[in-house]
């Protein structure tokens, strides 16, 4: 298709807008409300052009380019109208800085006293320097605003986690509303009110949490102004380095960009789309990275327990001390606990260290143990994971998958399928954002698992089970998984198991047949003299080992270790992990390690060398990778035959709630994410009873009130956390020790206000 733009004949593909066609041929038209990922809107009116044969001034972003069209993007009148419109936009946006003659000096020397009367200006805006509005003002070229500036005096909204909202800065371009509805298919955001009172937010004056916001940050990524401000990054300024890497928080290992400034991680963005991008990350990848990376508990150097206290020691000395502790300890006297977040390189060197240097095969992981006895069949099913199955099946059944705050890219693909008419069924306790598109929703089956699942897929030809981590914790998890595994083995159905940890496949490969060996059994057999905790410190009382070496980016609890070795943290060392569909994902280094911290493999190699080995002299992670045999990758696992621990009974009348328990499996390097990131604890706190808001109101309780949970003879007290994600009658307790205190899982309980 050919058209003429500003006297130049340009080519454009069929169906593009004039704006796209112009951009394509290098003609810049100022625009604010348009965004490549969103449907055209036509609200800001900056992109007005003249088209021969059309009345008035059509907007380039909403008008389809057509064969033979003649478009003019700059005439004297257009220029004048644009300047007028831009002035109108700015008169609703406190931005005197944009026109201030001292703007430059102010930028280098901070706020000048001339701005004393203006509470909000660019120099005090968190978005300063990465603002689309600033760029547009620059390109249109304004020297003054002929109108008074309206300050709308809207209170800044700061109560929700992760980002604040100052709608006094909002220009109502509607990008946030559109990305929330169109790309995230969530619909938390909407326009409210009319005329000068028009604003943005959840309808009916609910908070973002109440309205079902996933805190994915997509709105933030596309906002052209400083209206939406990331709490953690408010004053960090513009990044000076951007590194393409992978998210460390689950088995998807989503692509993301790590933003750094002055060698410190300040934030992340979804891949490769600049400052204004769509959002395919979940809350963890979008907001939790800098907080995990810069946590106050980060270790800057090694420490050793000496008589009378703890002593900071240089790395050299720490390595010698480790070698000393390990000297003469061999075989069964040495055990190592490992985190499923470690890279393949770290795991490989750790395996060699334990097996070759320490002559011990006593490797285990408390994180794997926390996933329960069904982890074996879960991983066996996962071995067949193919992300492409989502698009190829005719019926998707999600079991135990809570897409509220995780696995967003999977949820978006499922929702896109459901929206285009694919059958989507949900089984589980939680009402997540995909629920509105589900054809059917069922609670977790309490018995007859196989028949129940069979029934769900009865009419489907190519059914796909999507298994979320929550499938692992009910007492009949093995029965459910055995049923799914039978379907996959017989070819009746496919399955996609969502791995909750960054490199669970890698750890499984290292541990092989011993994967399901309980870490606690290992720790309590009395033979261990030295326990090496590689980013995996068991909770509870100090294990019965003579010495404990703790290697981690984070400080351990006091007196839990004899020697603490600082490992490189998030984005501080390169490596490889196996994603949940078995593909290697590359994690890149974005900043230097904190203090004297070193990559895990380097510390282990140094200790091995100090113990006299000469075959641990890797130059870099690449060399380790070359050494790893190809078989050090996904391999099918032996698994337990389905053995239910007894089905849970339907709730009796006096115990009207069904309580589901699960561990805080969202973790990073052996530490629960809700312990590392306060905002995440607002969403999924440990030790709280999550309850349907209606149920909470009936009980007369609000957020934080203590309730007594009773089941048979057992009783315990917890604070409540009302959440719209829970259906009436359902409770969820995230707790580090899932077996604690209740006779079954799920468990029929009664709830009373204390």
């Amino acid at each position: 298709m050919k058209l003429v733009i500003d006297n130049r004949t340009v080519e454009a593909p069929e169906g593009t807008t004039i704006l796209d066609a112009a951009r394509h041929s290098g003609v810049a038209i100022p625009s604010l409300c348009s965004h490549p990922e969103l449907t055209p809107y036509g609200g800001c009116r900056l992109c007005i052009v003249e088209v021969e044969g059309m009345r008035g001034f059509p907007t380039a972003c909403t008008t389809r380019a057509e064969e033979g069209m003649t478009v003019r993007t700059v005439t004297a009148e257009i220029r004048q109208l644009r300047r007028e419109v831009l002035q109108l936009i700015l008169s609703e946006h406190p931005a005197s800085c944009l026109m201030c003659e001292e703007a430059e000096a102010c930028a280098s020397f901070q706020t000048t006293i001339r701005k004393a009367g203006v509470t909000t200006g660019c120099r005090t805006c968190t978005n300063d320097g990465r603002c689309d509005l600033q760029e547009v003002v620059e390109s249109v070229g304004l020297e003054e605003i002929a109108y008074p500036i309206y300050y709308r005096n809207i209170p800044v909204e700061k109560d929700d986690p992760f980002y604040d909202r100052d709608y006094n800065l909002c220009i109502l371009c509607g990008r946030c509303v559109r990305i929330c509805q169109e790309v995230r298919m969530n619909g938390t955001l909407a326009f409210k009110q009319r005329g000068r009172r028009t604003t943005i937010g959840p309808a009916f004056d609910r908070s973002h949490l109440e309205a079902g916001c996933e805190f994915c940050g997509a709105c933030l990524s596309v906002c052209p102004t400083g209206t939406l401000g990331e709490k953690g990054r408010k004053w960090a300024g513009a990044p000076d380095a951007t590194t393409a890497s992978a998210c460390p928080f689950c088995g998807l290992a989503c692509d993301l960009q790590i933003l750094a400034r002055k060698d410190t991680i300040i934030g992340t963005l979804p891949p490769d789309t600049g400052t204004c991008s769509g959002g395919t990350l979940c809350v963890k990848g979008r907001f939790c990275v800098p907080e995990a990376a810069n946590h106050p508990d980060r270790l800057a150097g090694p420490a050793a327990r000496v008589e009378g206290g703890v002593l900071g020691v240089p790395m050299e000395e720490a390595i010698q001390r480790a070698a000393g502790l390990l000297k003469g300890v061999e075989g069964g006297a040495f055990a190592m606990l490992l985190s499923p977040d470690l890279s393949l390189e770290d795991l490989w060197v750790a395996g060699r260290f334990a097996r070759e240097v320490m002559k011990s095969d006593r490797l285990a992981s408390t994180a794997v143990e926390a996933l329960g006895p069904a982890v074996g069949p879960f991983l066996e099913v996962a071995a067949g994971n193919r992300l492409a199955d989502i698009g190829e099946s005719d019926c998707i059944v999600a079991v135990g998958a809570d897409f509220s705050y995780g696995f967003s890219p999977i949820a978006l693909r499922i929702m896109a399928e459901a929206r285009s008419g694919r059958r989507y069924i949900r089984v589980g306790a939680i009402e997540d954002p995909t629920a509105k598109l589900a054809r059917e929703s069922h609670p977790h089956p309490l018995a007859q698992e196989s028949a129940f699942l069979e029934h769900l897929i009865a009419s489907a030809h190519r059914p796909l089970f999507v298994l979320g981590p929550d499938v692992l914790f009910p007492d009949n998890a093995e029965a459910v998984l055995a049923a799914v595994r039978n379907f996959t083995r017989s070819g009746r159905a496919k399955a996609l198991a969502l791995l909750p940890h960054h490199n669970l496949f890698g750890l499984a490969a290292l541990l092989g047949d011993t994967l399901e060996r309980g870490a606690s059994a290992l720790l309590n057999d009395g033979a261990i003299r030295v326990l090496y905790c590689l980013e995996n410190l068991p909770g509870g009382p100090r294990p019965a080992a003579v010495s404990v070496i703790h290697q981690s980016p984070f400080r351990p609890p006091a007196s839990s270790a004899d020697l603490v070795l600082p490992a490189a943290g998030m984005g501080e060392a390169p490596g490889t992990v196996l994603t949940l569909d078995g593909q290697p994902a590359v994690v890149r280094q974005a900043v230097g390690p904190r203090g004297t911290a070193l990559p895990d493999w380097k510390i282990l190699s140094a200790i091995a060398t100090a113990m006299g080995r000469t075959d641990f002299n890797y130059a870099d992670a690449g060399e380790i990778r070359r050494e790893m045999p190809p078989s050090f990758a996904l391999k099918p696992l032996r698994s337990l035959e389905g053995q239910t621990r007894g089905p849970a009974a339907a709730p009796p009348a006096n115990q009207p709630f069904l309580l589901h328990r699960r561990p805080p499996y969202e973790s990073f390097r052996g530490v629960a994410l809700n312990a590392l990131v306060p905002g995440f604890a607002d969403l999924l706190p440990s030790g709280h009873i999550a309850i349907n808001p209606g149920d909470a109101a009936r009980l007369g309780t609000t957020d934080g009130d203590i309730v007594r949970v009773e089941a048979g003879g057992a009783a315990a007290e917890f604070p409540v956390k009302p959440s719209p994600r829970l259906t009436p009658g359902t409770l969820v307790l995230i707790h580090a020790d899932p077996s604690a205190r209740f006779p079954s899982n799920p468990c029929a309980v009664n709830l009373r206000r204390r």
Partner: protein
Amino acid sequence: MTDFERLKEQSIREWTDLTGGTRAVITLGTASCGRAAGAMAVRRSIEEALAKHGVEARILEVGCIGSCYLEPMVDVTLPGGPRFSYGNVQPAWAERIVASHFLEGKPLASKVVGHFGRDAIEGIPGFFDLPMFAPQVRIVLKNCGFIDPENLHHSIANGGYAGLHKALQKPPGDVISEVEAAGLRGRGGAGFPTGRKWRFCSEAEGEMKYVICNADEGDPGAFMNRSLIEGDPHAVLEGMLIAGYAIGASRGYVYIRAEYPLAIERLKKAMAQMRAEGLLGEGILGSPFSFDIGIKEGAGAFVCGEETALIASIEGRRGMPRTRPPFPVQEGLHGRPTVINNVETLGTLPHILRNGAAWYRGFGTEANPGTKTFSLVGKIRRTGLIEVPLGMPLRKIIFDIGGGTLKPFRAVQTGGPSGGCLSEEFLDTPVGYESLAKAGSIMGSGGLIVMDTDTCVVDIARYFLDFIQKESCGKCTPCRVGTRHMVEILERITGGEGELRDLDKLQLLAQTVKKTSLCGLGQTAPNPVLTTLAYFRSEYLQHIQERYCSAVVCRPLLEYFIIPEKCTGCQRCVAACPTGAITGPRAEVHNLDASKCIKCRSCYEICRFEAIAGNAIQIRSGGGL
């Protein structure tokens, strides 16, 4: 005999039984205007009077006949006699009216306003010879005020569904041609030729198409559409069926604001009756044409009358317009080709189909054929709903039909809040889409607001713009922000703080908003300002330079004072004044302290109406302030 002929025969029988001269009928206007004036209380007292005198009469509730200023209206027809009409009936009169007709056999001469008889009657004018009605031509409103709007048979007996019946005998393309030939233009505001719109839609590709009746009618002071639905809902529904048949649609919606409960109720009843008689649903009147209609109640946002916003609202989204093209005829409701027509456009169609295009072209002008309804409001003697052939000069409408203004005429605003404010020199403008546009105004949906010298046009411009500004959907910058700045400038001017350069700013803003707004709401919003700036510039200058409001409306420009010669010293005003600005001993001339006066008007009212006061308080503007 076809289904329709049978139905028609039955309807005529029922209608003749009622009006054929064998029964006493008392007709009562109970549309919203009648009800607001107290029609239901009148009905009760008529029933009591009938019972008291032991006489029988059928009470027939009808829609508004148009003379809203005469509501409540009661008409009495005795067997064999003509129908006599009474206006502004109070419940207390019922007894005398009933007694006069039924016992004395003659109308109550002191109260009767007209009759509907064929022959002249001594001393009583024919109703349609009244000055308000003589210049009118009633096509759309033909049945309003005559039939029971809740009775399908009344409609059919008076020509209803004959147009549809005729249309169904022709191929759809011929129906479109007939409407094209009639030259009917959309009555919702823009005047787009209805036939052409249909042609586009019928040629658009798509299995499923829709017809939407736009009954949003959000202009303040406009009630034509409501009145038509309340008075003759079947005309509108029949029009939808004709449109549906012509473009190949099988589904229609009436988008109506929830503030019109009576109209909604009447539509629902009408649809139930249609369904029962085979006029709605599968195989209408035994033809292969099937059509169903749903009612969508709008929340009452002005912008929802704009067609793309209306579609969004029906789809359950926020009522916000989008840019066109694509037009609804290409991509409308649920992305499918959709015809949206105004209530009056649809209500006219049955008449065109029944009587033919040539007949319709017999009214109005070449470019503006047919008739148009207007709601006549403001500072005018006879307010109401009128229907006139297009091309009639404004002067005739305002002075002959409306009876003129009490004080000297100053301006007329056509087209509702987004229309223009026209001065006396435009009174000879023939009413038409182009002629009004040329004057800087619009036809709009037919609101006519008349102003006399007691109305300040600067204040009126401020009022309309403020309305628009509050109703802006907020989507596009010029409409949301530009109108806000305009309102503030106008507030400054009417507040006595205007500056000369404000006029240039207003002009510039008005041009920007007009040229760059997304939808019709923003594009027409500046009209009241642009027209008043052009035709009443001197008033703006008086406000700014002399702090003078000739209409004595703009409060900050007013001054209250006491005429000493008239003051009786009664002290009524002293008690009424909330700020103690008036002082003075009894029986002596009082003193009004302007610095304390808040211009609340209390003293003025009391001095004017209290018997012992002397009407001594005067309000004036520009008195050397």
